[in-house]
């Protein structure tokens, strides 16, 4: 790695005299505040949304923020969250998948049929379910690429066709129960991270954040580029670790941190790495931003579309398996009703653009937390689905309106 000449003792990327050079923690905080004010909101609106929603529900029902209910929330959000993670991938390339609910339903039914009806091992059942998810995504990609059918239509067809497949798979009985003693069901209902290990995870997350930031800052300094100040990095890592430690402590007061939730977090981190640190992830953003430019830059746009759909359907299928495990059954209504739209809404509420090229893996995590919080809060208040739909719809509208307003502000302040 060559080092650039750095006259004036300034980092190579801070040479232009028009640039303000931040120094120390105070400047870093001020820069963050300015970024937010200019409309570069990042995760702030959805985090603020969660705070508002939690405050309201807590004031209406004291059990909402109880440890028991939050442990339940940590379980309930996983199937939908995994599906929403897939939706983020498809939205990133500027496409849409309306059939994630049906695909998750088929996959739940397939798991149950293979495992219970044919009495095959659990691993095979899961492999069949996720494998068929991959095949469905590949099929969508082929139809989109070869015939140029818009993904909206392809996946609308898929929604109906796979709903039919699910009903056909379960034609003899309305529901197939999974055995309660199977590891799959235990995983989704009673397996928790041991208390001490959960604390270790929380500290490790803060330490990992600090280590990654430190390595990055060191290699940037060596290359003569500006780098984050260590106190600022330490502050962020400390806050992260403290927040996680408190969460673990609070959940440990009752049942603890579900392993299923850890699986979800792991998936989010994996997708985050792929999106941000690999050439493939970069090409997803590029295709979503300007497919023609990506093609001219030598990116195989068709392969990118296909792999985005494969990722989406595979994650939807995984979500279906987890939903079946959570319920300990696959029935004809698994993955139907509002699963499709909730998954897409979660991705969008989390800050993923419907027009492609913008969004992160954490959008799925935070978006689904919003949606499941609303659902859980209203259930505690004994209000039926009608309220849930209306309120979720309003939140979605607010999220998208806020995003549009922020985008206009970003453009006005030259942040794209």
């Amino acid at each position, binding site marked *: 790695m060559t080092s650039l000449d750095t006259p004036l003792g300034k980092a190579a990327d801070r040479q232009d005299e028009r640039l303000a050079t931040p120094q120390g923690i105070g400047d870093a905080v001020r820069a963050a505040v300015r970024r937010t004010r200019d409309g570069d909101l990042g995760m702030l609106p959805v985090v603020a949304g969660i705070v508002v929603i939690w405050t309201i529900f807590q004031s209406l029902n004291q059990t909402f923020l109880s440890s028991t209910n939050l442990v339940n929330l940590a379980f309930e959000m996983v199937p939908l969250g995994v599906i929403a993670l897939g939706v983020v991938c498809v939205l990133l390339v500027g496409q849409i998948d309306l059939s994630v609910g049906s695909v998750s339903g088929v996959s739940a039914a397939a798991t149950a049929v293979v495992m219970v009806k044919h009495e095959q091992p659990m691993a095979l059942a899961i492999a069949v379910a996720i494998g068929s998810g991959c095949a469905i995504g590949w099929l969508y990609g082929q139809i989109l690429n070869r015939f140029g059918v818009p993904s909206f239509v392809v996946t609308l067809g898929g929604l109906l066709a796979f709903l039919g497949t699910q009903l056909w798979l379960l034609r003899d009985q309305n529901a197939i129960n999974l055995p309660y003693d199977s590891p799959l069901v235990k995983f989704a209902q009673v397996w928790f991270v041991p208390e001490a290990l959960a604390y270790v995870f929380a500290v490790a997350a803060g330490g990992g954040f600090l280590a990654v930031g430190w390595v990055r800052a060191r290699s940037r300094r060596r290359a003569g*580029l500006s780098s984050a100040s260590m106190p600022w990095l330490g502050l962020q890592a400390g806050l992260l670790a403290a927040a996680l430690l408190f969460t673990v402590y609070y959940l440990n007061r009752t049942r603890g941190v579900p392993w299923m939730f850890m699986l979800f977090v792991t998936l989010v981190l994996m997708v985050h790495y792929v999106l941000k640190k*690999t050439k493939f992830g970069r090409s997803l953003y590029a295709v979503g931003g300007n497919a023609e430019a*990506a093609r001219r*830059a030598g990116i195989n746009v068709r392969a990118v579309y296909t792999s985005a759909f494969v990722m989406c359907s595979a994650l939807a299928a995984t979500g279906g398996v987890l939903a079946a495990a959570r319920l300990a059954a696959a029935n004809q209504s698994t993955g139907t009703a509002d699963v499709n739209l909730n998954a897409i809404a979660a991705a969008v509420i989390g800050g993923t653009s419907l027009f492609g*090229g913008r969004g992160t893996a954490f959008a799925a995590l935070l978006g689904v937390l919003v949606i499941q919080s609303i659902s859980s809060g209203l259930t505690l208040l004994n209000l039926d689905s009608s309220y849930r739909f209306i309120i979720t719809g309003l939140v979605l509208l607010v999220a998208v309106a806020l995003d549009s307003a922020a985008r206009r502000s970003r453009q006005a302040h030259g942040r794209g």
Partner: protein
Amino acid sequence: MTAPAAPTAPTVLSLRGVSKQFGAVAALTGIDLDVAAGEVVAVVGDNGAGKSTLVKILSGVYTPDGGTISFHGREVSLGTPADAQAIGIATVFQDLALCENLDVKANLFLGQELRPWMLDDVAMETRSWELLRELSARIPTLDVPVAALSGGQRQTVAITRALLGKPEVILLDEPTAALGVAQTAEVLNLIERLRGNGLGVVMISHNMDDVRAVADRVAVLRLGRNNGVFDARTVTSEQVVAAITGAADNVVAQRAARRASAGPRADADPRTDTAPRPDSGPRKEKELP
């Protein structure tokens, strides 16, 4: 027709008798063109003269039906855009082809990222700054998405990206077409720096001012054929326009003559005077019924 200035540097890219046929239409017939290292060759011509076809042949999008293309005296075939880039011919198309949602460094390295499975952001950023400094490009930070840049800065990013593969010849398709006055000057400076760095530059343009400002030689295409190569320092706009339109007595010359006899502001706005369009005659009649 003036004799072209003999290029002093060695010729890098050389076209002889290049032709391209689209059905019954001969888009290009027997085109000859030489580009030396450290030289800016402007290719001008009216709409339909074959400029775009020529660019697409040189960038490997179209394959020519006849003739030869040689690079450093060796005959080459440009079957695909990747071939052209591998040989050392980079192209900046008119629409730039940038991803507006990605930041500057992501755009520069798009499709050729370092370390595909663990992107080397630091090395990519360092290399980006090196390239931009070489061109004395005025882009304050690489962290902003391209959507936040001005037109001239975008053109700079597109040209810088073309330089990433260390080309010897760079094709610029209408580099100043969509730009304002200051931004045009910025891009013209950039073209001069490319020449200073020893690159052969082929610049397709409609704008006679820009051509005369930076080009060393002006090659005129007319109806898919060579219609003269001029030394940009000595040629007059009238001569070039005559070659473009194929006649000394053309609409543009008539206008210039009329304005010269009308007053001293004859050359006040050569930009509009020297950009002829085939339909400018009839349109004028409509304006003055």
